[in-house]
C-alpha cells in the first residue's frame, strides 16, 4: 500500500508569513529566507520510495515443541535485498494473538543499507496448542517521511509453534505390567492363573477339566482360575473455575496443565492397549462440542466408538474454557495471581460460585461418583487449588477405588502469598495421601513423563 503523506504543506504558509513580515518590516533578508521553507516543500514533494526496494524476512523459533509455561525465543531477521539504502524501515512481527510476549518487543525501527540485515528478538510464553505466526507488517518511508509503502511481508522459516502431546518416547517402555488392562481378582472362574479345583458340574467348559487328575484318579474335576476382570481406568480432569488460575500472566492455567498431563497419560495407555475413560469436571455447555451429559460432566466412555477422538475433544475443551474465561476477564487471573500467589478465588473476582472446596454434597463430585463403573482405577488430575480434589479422592477411597492424584505445582514466586498457597497445597496433598491415594506432585520443571513413570508401576499392580 503506497501512501503520500503531505507533511510539508505547512512550508507554504511559512513562506507566505515570511513574505508578509518582510514587506511589513522592510527587511530583505526575510524575503531571501523564504528559500528555507520552500526547499523543505520541494524536499517533501520530490522524495519517493525507490522502486528497487526489496526486503526479505526469516524467522527462527528456538524450541519448536516446548512444554507449556516455558518462554520461547523468537528471532526475526530482516534483510535489505534491494539495491538502494532504506533510511526508515519499521517491522512488526505477526505474533499469534493468544501468545503473550514476555521479553523484548516484536517491533523495530531501523535503517538498512543494501545487503544489510537486522535481527529482532523477543520471547513468548508457550501455551498448549498449535499457533501460527502471521506475516510481518513492514512499512518503509523516505528520509523526508513524505512517502511510505506498507506491506505484509511473508516470513520464511519457522511459522508455527506447537506445544502438544506428541510423544517421542514411550514412557511405559520399561514399566512392568503383569496384565495390561486386567486385574486379577480373588474369585475363581475362567482365567490364566490357577486358583482352585472343584468337582465337575455338568455344563462346565470342557477345556477346564483337569485331565491329568482324571488320568490318575478317574475323577472329573474342574479347575478354577483367577477371574480376571477387565479393569476400567478413568481419568478425571479438574477443569472447574477454581482450577483455572495461573501464577503469572501468559502462563497456562492449572486446568490446562492437568488436561495436558491427562492427555499424555491417555496416549501412553492407549499405546499399551489400555483404553481409559476420560471425564472433565466443571466445563460449561458451550465449551464442549455436542454439549455436556445430563449430569453436567463431559464424559468419554472407553468402550464407545472413536474414544480417542472424543477424548482429544474433551482435552481441547478445557483449553477453550480457560481461553473463554480469560477473554472475558483479561486482567482477572493476573490480578488474582498478581502477587505470584494464591490460586484461591477469594475476594473481588467472584465470577465463579463454586463452594470452597467441594463438600460431599458438591454436585460435581456426586456426578463423578455416580458415573464411575463399579470397579475402576481412577486417576484425578487437579492443581489442588481448593479442597475439591481432596474430597473426591477421600470419597473414592471410602468406596474402595484405587486412586491416584496427579497435581501440577502452580506456585511460583517468592512472595508471601505464594508461600502460603504452596503450604496449603502440600497440606491438601498430604490429606489425599492419608486417605489412601497415590499422590504424584508434578513439579513443572521436570517433564510429566518422568513424574508419571515413577508411579505407573503402582497404577497397575495390585
Amino acid at each position, binding site marked *: 500500500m503506497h501512501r503520500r503523506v503531505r507533511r510539508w504543506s505547512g512550508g507554504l504558509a511559512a513562506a507566505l508569513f515570511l513574505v508578509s513580515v518582510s514587506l511589513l518590516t522592510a527587511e530583505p*533578508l526575510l524575503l*531571501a529566507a523564504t528559500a528555507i521553507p520552500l*526547499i523543505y516543500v520541494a524536499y517533501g514533494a520530490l522524495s519517493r520510495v525507490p522502486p528497487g526496494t526489496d526486503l526479505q524476512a526469516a524467522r527462527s523459533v528456538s524450541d519448536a515443541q516446548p512444554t507449556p509455561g516455558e518462554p520461547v525465543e523468537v528471532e526475526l531477521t530482516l534483510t535489505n535485498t534491494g539495491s538502494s539504502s532504506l533510511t526508515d524501515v519499521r517491522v512488526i512481527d505477526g505474533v499469534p494473538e493468544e501468545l503473550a510476549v514476555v521479553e523484548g518487543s516484536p517491533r523495530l525501527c531501523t535503517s538498512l543499507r543494501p545487503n544489510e540485515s537486522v535481527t529482532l528478538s523477543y520471547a513468548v510464553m508457550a501455551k498448549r496448542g498449535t499457533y501460527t505466526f502471521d506475516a510481518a507488517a513492514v512499512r518503509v518511508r523516505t528520509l523526508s*517521511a513524505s512517502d511510505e509503502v506498507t506491506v505484509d511481508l511473508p516470513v520464511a522459516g519457522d511459522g508455527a509453534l506447537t506445544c502438544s502431546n506428541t510423544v517421542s518416547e514411550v514412557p511405559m517402555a520399561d514399566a512392568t505390567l503383569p496384565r495390561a488392562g486386567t486385574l486379577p481378582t480373588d474369585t475363581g472362574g475362567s482365567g490364566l492363573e490357577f486358583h482352585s479345583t472343584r468337582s465337575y458340574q455338568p455344563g462346565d467348559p470342557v477345556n477346564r477339566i483337569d485331565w491329568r487328575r482324571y488320568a490318575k484318579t478317574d475323577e472329573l474335576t474342574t479347575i478354577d482360575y483367577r477371574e480376571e476382570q477387565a479393569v476400567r481406568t478413568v481419568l478425571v480432569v479438574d477443569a472447574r473455575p477454581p482450577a483455572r488460575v495461573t501464577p503469572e500472566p501468559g502462563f497456562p492455567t492449572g486446568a490446562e496443565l492437568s488436561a495436558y498431563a491427562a492427555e499424555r497419560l491417555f496416549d501412553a495407555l492407549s499405546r499399551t492397549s489400555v483404553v481409559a475413560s476420560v471425564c472433565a469436571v466443571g466445563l460449561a455447555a458451550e465449551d464442549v462440542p455436542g454439549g455436556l451429559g445430563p449430569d453436567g460432566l463431559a464424559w468419554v466412555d472407553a468402550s464407545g466408538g472413536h474414544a480417542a477422538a472424543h477424548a482429544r475433544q474433551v482435552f481441547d475443551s478445557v483449553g477453550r474454557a480457560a481461553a473463554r474465561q480469560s477473554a472475558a476477564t483479561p486482567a482477572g487471573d493476573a490480578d488474582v495471581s498478581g502477587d505470584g500467589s494464591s490460586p484461591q478465588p477469594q475476594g473481588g473476582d467472584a465470577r465463579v460460585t463454586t463452594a470452597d472446596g467441594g463438600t460431599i454434597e458438591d454436585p460435581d463430585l456426586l456426578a463423578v461418583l455416580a458415573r464411575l463403573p463399579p470397579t475402576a482405577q481412577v486417576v484425578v488430575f487437579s492443581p489442588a487449588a481448593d479442597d475439591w480434589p481432596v474430597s473426591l479422592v477421600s470419597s473414592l477411597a471410602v468406596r474402595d477405588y484405587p486412586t491416584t492424584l496427579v497435581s501440577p505445582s502452580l506456585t511460583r514466586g517468592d512472595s508471601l502469598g505464594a508461600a502460603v498457597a504452596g503450604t496449603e497445597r502440600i497440606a491438601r496433598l498430604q490429606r489425599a495421601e492419608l486417605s489412601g491415594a497415590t499422590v504424584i506432585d508434578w513439579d513443572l520443571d521436570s517433564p510429566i513423563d518422568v513424574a508419571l513413570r515413577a508411579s505407573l508401576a503402582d497404577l497397575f499392580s495390585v
Partner: protein
Amino acid sequence: MDDHTTLSTRMPWTSLATVVGVTAVLVAGLLGTVSADRAAIVGAATGVLLALSLWLSGWDRWQAVGTVLASVLALPVAVGLSVATGGSVVTLGAELFPVSSQAGVRPAVVTLVSQVFVVLGCLTAVFGATAATRGVVDIERVGTYGGVVVRTTVVPFVVALALFTRGAVDFLQSNADTPGVQQLTGEVLTRVLGPVFDPVPGRTHIAIFSLLLALAAAALARGLDALPLSELVPETSDAPDIDGTVGAVERTLRWTGRLALLAAPVAGLFELGLGQESMAELLPGGLYDLIVAVTAAPGLRGLLWWLFLTGTAVSVAVWFLRRAVQSSADRVGSVLAPYVGGGVITLAAVAVAGPAVGAIEMALRATPAATAVDQLLAPILDVYGPETVTLALTVVALFSVISATGQLWVALATSYLRERTAGVTLAAAGLFGASAFAATLSTPTWLVLAGLVGAVVVWDAGSFGTTLGREVGTGAATRRAELVHTGGTVAVGGVGAAATLGLSEVAQGAVAVAPSVAVAGLVVCLVAVLALVAAIR
C-alpha cells in the same frame, strides 16, 4: 499497525531531547537580542507555568488538588503574560521614545512591535516544548483549564465590581458638583424602601404588612420543610411526635401566608378607597387602634424581614448541603476549587495593592506617557483606591489568559492544530515567528537562519517521534533511525540557509537596481516557485 486504544502522544527519548534542546538553545539566543531582559525571562517562565497548569487541570488522580493549584497558578500566568507584553512595551517604550524626528517614529514602532513579538514567540515556543514532553495539549484539558480560569475570575471580578460601585457611589454622593445624580438616587431609594421599613405612624398599612407577612410565612414554611427535623428524632415508641407538630406548624404557616396574600389587595383597595377616617368609623375603636399599632410598628416589620431572610437562608443551606453530601469529596473539591483559588487571588491582589500600584506608577512615569499618568491615573487612584485598581488590572490580565486559552481551544476544535502534535507545532510556530521578527532587530544573520531552520527541525523531530512512538512504541531502540531522519532535515535546512545567503548577496550586489524593483523582482520569483511546487504536487 495502528494502536487504537488510547491517544499516544509520547515520543522516544531522542526526539524529545531534540525538541526540548533545540527550543531551549534558540530561545536563549533570541531572547538575548531583546533589550527587555527581565520581561523576556518572565515571559519564558510563563510558558512553563502555562503548560504546568494545563497538566494540573487534567490530573485525574488528585483532581481537587490539581484544580486548586491550576486556579492559583492562573495569577502568575496572567501576570507573566501581561509583563511579557505590556511590560516589554513599557520598558522598550521608555528606551525608544521620545524619538528625535518624525521620520524616526515608524522604525521605532516597528522595533517595538518586533521585540514584543519575539518575546511572545519565545513564550509560545517554551509552552509548546514543555507541553510536548507530556502531551498535555488536548482539547479536553484545554477546555477544563478554560473553565477553571473562568470560574477563578468570577470572585475577583465580583469583588472588583462591588468595590468599583461603592467607590463610584461614594464619589457621587460626596461630590456636590453632581446634585442631580445624587438626589435622584437618593429619592428613588427613599421612595422604595420607606413604605416597607419606615411606615408613617398613625395610619393603617394593612396591604404592605400583609405582603410582608405572606413572604415571611412562606419562607419560614420552606425552611421548616427543608430541615430534617423528623429524621433526626429516633424511631422509638416513647419519642416525641415531632412529625405531627412540624406538620401542624407548617400547615399553619402556609395558610397564614395564603390568607395574608389574599387579604393584601382587598385591604389595599379598602385603604385607598375609603381613607383613614371612614375606616376609623367603620371599625370598632379598639380594633382600629390595634390595627394601626400592629401595621405601623417598624420593629415588627424588621422582625418579619429577618424571619424571611432566615427562612430563605435555611432552605439554601440545606439544598447546598444535600448536593455536597451526595457527591464525593473529590468532586465537591474540584467544583469549589476555582472559587477558592479566586478568593486566594483576590486576597493576594488586595494585599500587594499598595506597592504594586506604586511600582506601576513609577514605571509609567519613566515613559513619555508621564503626563497621562498625572491626568488620569492619580485621580482614579484617589477615587477608587489602589485595591480596586489592582483588582481591575488582575481581572483584565485573567481575561487575557481566558482569551489565549479560548484561541487554543478553537484551534484544536477546528483541527487546525492536531492534538497529537499540538505541542511541537506551537513550539515550532513560536520559534519561527520569533526568528522572523528578530531579523528586524540587530540580530546576527546566522542566528536568524539558525532559528528558522531550528523551528523546522523541532517540528519535524516532534512529529516524526510521535508517529514512531505510536507505531513502534517508545521501548524499542530507535535512536539510529531518529538521528538519520533529523540529520537529513538539518542537511536540507543547511542547503536552504546557503541558498538564502546566496540570494541575499545577490540582492545586495544588485545595487544598481532600485531596492523597490529588487523587492518586486523577488516577489515575482517567489510566486513562480510557489506555482511550480504546487504543480509538482
